[in-house]
């Protein structure tokens, strides 16, 4: 069995009568990318904050690096890098100054060249002297990641790291996370609203809804190809629909008005072949079975 970096057992957090997190348990293996999914208010940030000792749990046990978090916060946090919600830094200080003061907490006095190297790693070369208030959201996100990397952590927690970023910024962060995991062997815990991003990055995932764990498992196992949504565009939709209705494919139709099917992805070539043999030209075939659909499917069914 792979080494466990995080073991959470029966974790709960209540504010008065409101239960923000309800008795959740999960484990994170070393070197994996673990996705934390859920809508707003699902309890993701509360859980991540409890892992960082920012919020005290009402109940439950958190073990990180095989050590109980309670009473060992300082030693454990020494090996964790984190961005929680927004990547805030001291706006009135420069990027260098922000890195310098946080490196002092770890007892390091990083030299200018080392700081520049770190900034280069997150794509902020040459901007270290600028005040953070002049940074774009994407640049702040990169600086936040640089701050999280100051202690060379083996475990990184990233809460909504792609929030507010443009498509290029999202792609850059995704590549960076993949690099940390695959090339540097760090363990990553990531939460996001952009679920397709998680699908592209994470090995394992947990879905939270209203403070409860709905599902946990490996991403590829949770994506069942039998439930792929297939949308077909043809040169003659009416004729195509008639042919479908008279065939065995009608059972897979989701709607009587459009050529949308819920079916096993493996059967798509056969469906296309069937229509072509009926002299219907296929203009486009769109398959859609992302984690996002899976997530929405699960959360909608429990509302």
């Amino acid at each position, binding site marked *: 069995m792979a080494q466990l970096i995080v073991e959470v057992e029966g974790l709960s957090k209540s504010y008065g009568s409101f239960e923000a997190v309800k008795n959740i348990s999960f484990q994170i293996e070393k070197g994996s990318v673990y996705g934390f999914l859920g809508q707003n208010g699902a309890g993701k940030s509360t859980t991540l*904050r409890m892992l*960082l*000792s*920012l*919020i*005290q749990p009402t109940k439950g046990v958190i073990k990180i690096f095989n050590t109980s978090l309670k009473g060992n*916060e*300082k*030693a454990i*946090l*020494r090996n*964790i890098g*984190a961005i*929680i*919600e*927004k990547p*805030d*830094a*001291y*706006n*009135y*200080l420069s990027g260098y*100054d922000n890195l310098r*003061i*946080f490196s*002092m*907490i*770890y*007892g390091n006095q990083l030299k200018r060249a080392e700081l520049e190297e770190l900034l280069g790693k997150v794509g902020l070369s040459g901007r270290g002297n600028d005040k953070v208030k002049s940074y774009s959201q994407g640049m702040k996100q990169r600086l936040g990641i640089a*701050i999280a990397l100051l*202690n060379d952590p083996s475990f990184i927690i990233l809460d909504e790291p792609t929030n507010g970023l443009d498509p290029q910024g999202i792609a850059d962060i995704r590549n960076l996370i993949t690099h940390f995991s695959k090339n540097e062997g760090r363990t990553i815990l990531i939460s996001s609203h952009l679920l397709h991003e998680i699908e592209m990055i994470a090995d394992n995932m947990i879905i939270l809804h209203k403070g409860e764990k709905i599902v946990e498992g490996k991403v590829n196992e949770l994506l069942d190809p039998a439930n792929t949504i297939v949308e077909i565009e043809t040169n003659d939709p009416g004729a195509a629909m008639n042919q479908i209705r008279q065939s065995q494919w009608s059972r897979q139709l989701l709607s009587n008005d459009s050529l949308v099917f819920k079916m096993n992805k493996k059967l798509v070539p056969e469906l296309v072949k069937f229509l072509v043999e009926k002299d219907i030209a296929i203009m486009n075939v769109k398959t859609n079975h992302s984690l996002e659909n899976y997530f929405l499917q699960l959360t909608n069914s429990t509302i």
Partner: protein
Amino acid sequence: MRSLLAIELFKISKRPRTFISFAAISAIVLIFQFAFKADGENYMNLMLQGVNDSFQLNKVNALNGYFMCYIILNTLLVQVPILVALVAGDAISGEANMGTLRLLLSKPVYRHEILWAKFLASIAYTLVLLVWMALFSLGLSVLIFGSGDMLVFRVAGEVSQIMQISSDDILWRYLAAFGYAAIALTVIVSLAIFFSLFAENSIGPIIITICIVLVFTIVSNMNIPIIDIHVKPYLFTSYLVGWKGFFYIATTPEGVPIKGSIEDLRSIKNSVLILLAHIGVLQTLTWYFFKRKDILS
């Protein structure tokens, strides 16, 4: 801990609001000095109007740097708590507002270390502010107005009194007075940091601290017997002006000032102990709540 203190001092030094206090103090002192240089003699005539017949004084020498400093401190030490609250009230709430509190506390530091670093940094700021005040109100005033024996006007109940302290008996009194002021202002620092704990922007704690100081100061200055007995002893503001006690010199039964003496040292000691108790209680409460605080900002 030393690193955290260095970080806090660095952050304070980089915030523009830090320097508002220094600019305000400089402006007030310079205005005072200019006004007294231009029209100080008339002021002295007015103050000494009733004592001319019984007291032989050199009015020109009486308006010296030591006297100027005393006049300035009487005005400024009431306002300085407001300036101190500007920085201390921002200590935790400012971080919460910027979102850096969660960043700071997700690093390997104990919460009490952060709290102590912020407390010590705010005290350091207060001390620097006092040194600045001393340089401007005492140093510059002595340069402009010269030195000499110092007159202290005192109103106790319905009795007005003028005391004269010889020039070689003054500096240590100022040193003690600034030391006392540092302790008194540390109460304000503790109060502002305490309120800073519960807010997510610095306006609230700064305004609450200033309001408390203002209301308590007004009540402390009321001369109503029931308030004198039952309220004033419990207000920290009653002890903020205790520094003046260092300038109330003891006299012989014949009314001759005793050099190096203080009229009521016991009262000053009591005031210091009460202020220190306030600091202790406020710090303990701040630590208690901060340790248990969920960081939601």
